[in-house]
């Protein structure tokens, strides 16, 4: 596939169209995968979305899909569609660094359940994407290896922590990607990069093989060109897994079947607290156009309230780091990963040097605050208090979702900021996620869809939050909105005239 113009046209299609072309035999899965790999080769040196590219693994899977089709086997709805995987998810035999020096050179020894599932439906894995180290950050600048650039404006961050996955899909280097979301890490980069991202209900998707950050908050989810693609990928990865006892025993509905385009009578609550101070006026206006569009389609809108949302940031930065300090205790340099070369007087010194050399500044900050919040004398004041306020926040969200079918808000208070702009002010960086924390703390699903552009040409995202296990409803609203608008089909200028 040397005809670049042809490749670009092909990959600008959403995943469901590519899959249909593959099933009908119009194009082979190998050709689509080669196009994706060629696009990565052309654009990754500029965008830097991938930490590892896996052409052999991808082409082997693509060939298997083509062979299955040739044998007359029925292919699944995403068979042959290339996918990028965030580098905190294990792919057997492939490097899994979590963008950390402490895991530099580490090769996963098994497949994450979500990886096993995308492989089983014939999706070629084209590579592992960059992230903030251990998924801690909002800009992908906390990667120990390099910064990922926003395809819409290379001087801007792609968001984070799933910034590599979001940038890969925005530049159509891969039609789909998997990310993880602990406090907004799928939705916030999806918003910054002008794509669709879904954080599922806690327990909807297995976390087996996801390197843990905040285990009561983490969920794996889809980054996609549109809601149809997000629904298709969610259907692949969702469902109970005996290897993750927190995965829920709840049947997986037909998400694509729920995309009826009909939102008549649907009650949409606009979250008052997320439409005021601190929200960029351009973002607010853009989100209001979403409300008006849905009204035009027969939905009703009203004002919703999450009174405790002001406390979401302190609650999140106590609970997330507390869980992280426990999860990251396993990195001790004994059985895998980095080990200090310094001669240590005892094992404690060896652990301490290994960890000091292996972890970056933000990861250390979170391990430290988490350790502090859990330490003797502070547990009740910090960790227990945060868990109680988490209850109040969860009850707020549940009450709002009793009054409304979905909640609407901006995904982020601001659009993509400049690379280097907030990197020396970690707490200002935390504010980038103030609209997304609540869904993780309450355990409910959240979806970000593109809803316009700033005057400067940066994408704006609208967030729909739904009831637990009602991903189908927020996907239906997002899809209905996308049927009526074209923001999600806009492509970055980077893709050139051929785009």
């Amino acid at each position: 596939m040397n005809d670049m113009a042809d490749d670009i046209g092909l990959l600008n299609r959403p995943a469901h169209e590519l899959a249909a072309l593959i099933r009908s035999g119009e194009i082979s899965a190998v050709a689509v995968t080669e196009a994706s790999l060629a696009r990565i080769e052309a654009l990754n040196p500029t965008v830097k979305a991938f930490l590892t590219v896996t052409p052999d693994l991808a082409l082997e899977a693509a060939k298997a899909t083509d062979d299955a089709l040739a044998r007359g086997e029925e292919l699944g709805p995403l068979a042959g569609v290339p996918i990028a995987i965030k580098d905190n998810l294990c792919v057997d035999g492939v490097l899994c660094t979590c963008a950390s020096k402490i895991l530099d050179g580490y090769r996963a020894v098994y497949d994450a359940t979500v990886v096993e599932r995308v492989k089983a439906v014939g999706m070629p894995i084209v590579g592992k994407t960059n992230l903030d180290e251990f998924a801690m950050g909002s800009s992908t600048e906390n990667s120990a290896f390099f910064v990922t650039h926003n395809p819409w404006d290379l001087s801007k961050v792609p968001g984070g922590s799933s910034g590599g996955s979001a940038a890969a899909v925005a530049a159509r280097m891969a039609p789909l990607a998997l990310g993880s979301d602990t406090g907004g890490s799928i939705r916030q980069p999806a918003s910054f990069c002008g794509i669709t991202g879904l954080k599922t209900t806690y327990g909807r998707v297995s976390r087996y093989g996801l390197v843990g950050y905040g285990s009561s908050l983490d969920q794996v989810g889809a980054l996609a060109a549109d809601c149809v693609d997000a629904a298709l990928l969610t259907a692949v990865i969702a469902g109970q897994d005996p290897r993750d006892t927190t995965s829920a025993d709840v049947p997986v509905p037909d998400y694509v079947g729920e995309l009826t385009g009909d939102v008549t009578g649907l009650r949409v609550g606009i979250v008052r607290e997320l439409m005021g101070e601190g929200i960029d006026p351009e973002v607010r206006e853009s989100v209001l156009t979403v409300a008006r569009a849905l009204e035009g389609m027969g939905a009703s809108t009203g004002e919703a309230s999450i009174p405790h949302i002001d406390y979401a940031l302190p609650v999140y930065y106590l609970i997330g780091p507390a869980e992280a300090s426990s999860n990251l205790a396993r990195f001790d340099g004994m059985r895998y990963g980095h080990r200090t070369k310094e001669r240590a007087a005892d094992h404690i010194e060896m652990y301490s040097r290994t960890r000091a050399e292996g972890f970056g500044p933000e990861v250390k900050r979170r391990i430290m605050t988490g350790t502090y919040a859990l330490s003797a004398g502070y547990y009740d004041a910090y960790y227990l208090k945060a868990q109680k306020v988490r209850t109040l926040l969860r009850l707020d969200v549940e009450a709002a979702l009793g009054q409304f079918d979905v909640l609407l808000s901006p995904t982020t208070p601001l659009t993509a900021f400049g690379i280097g702009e907030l990197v020396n002010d970690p707490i200002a960086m935390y504010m980038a996620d103030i609209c997304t924390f609540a869904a993780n703390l309450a355990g409910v699903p959240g979806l970000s869809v593109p809803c316009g552009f700033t005057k400067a040409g940066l994408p704006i995202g609208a967030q729909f939050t739904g009831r637990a296990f009602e991903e189908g409803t927020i996907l239906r609203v997002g899809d209905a909105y996308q049927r009526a608008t074209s923001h999600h089909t806009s492509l970055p200028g980077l893709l050139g005239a051929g785009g």
Partner: protein
Amino acid sequence: MIPVSVTRDDVAHVARLARLAMSEQELDQMHGYFEAILEHFAKLAAVDTEGVEPTSHPLARANVTREDCVTEPMDRTKLLANAPLADGECFLVPQIMEDE
């Protein structure tokens, strides 16, 4: 009661608990960060949580069990391949005690 300040010694103590070696400069920076983030944590003191149950987990699941069955262990060679130091059968760690 939520503490509103933390000393540099407190931070050094937490670094020891967290098994993180820190230079004097790093301790200074971490101390500055603690003071800033504690201001945000202190806001929680204003919330009345009398009688509120803590949420440790969004799912109300308890005592998830499975059949106790025999499965294949992971391949030793594959696992040892990631080790900083191994002898083909065991993980090797540096000596931490003096020879007798």
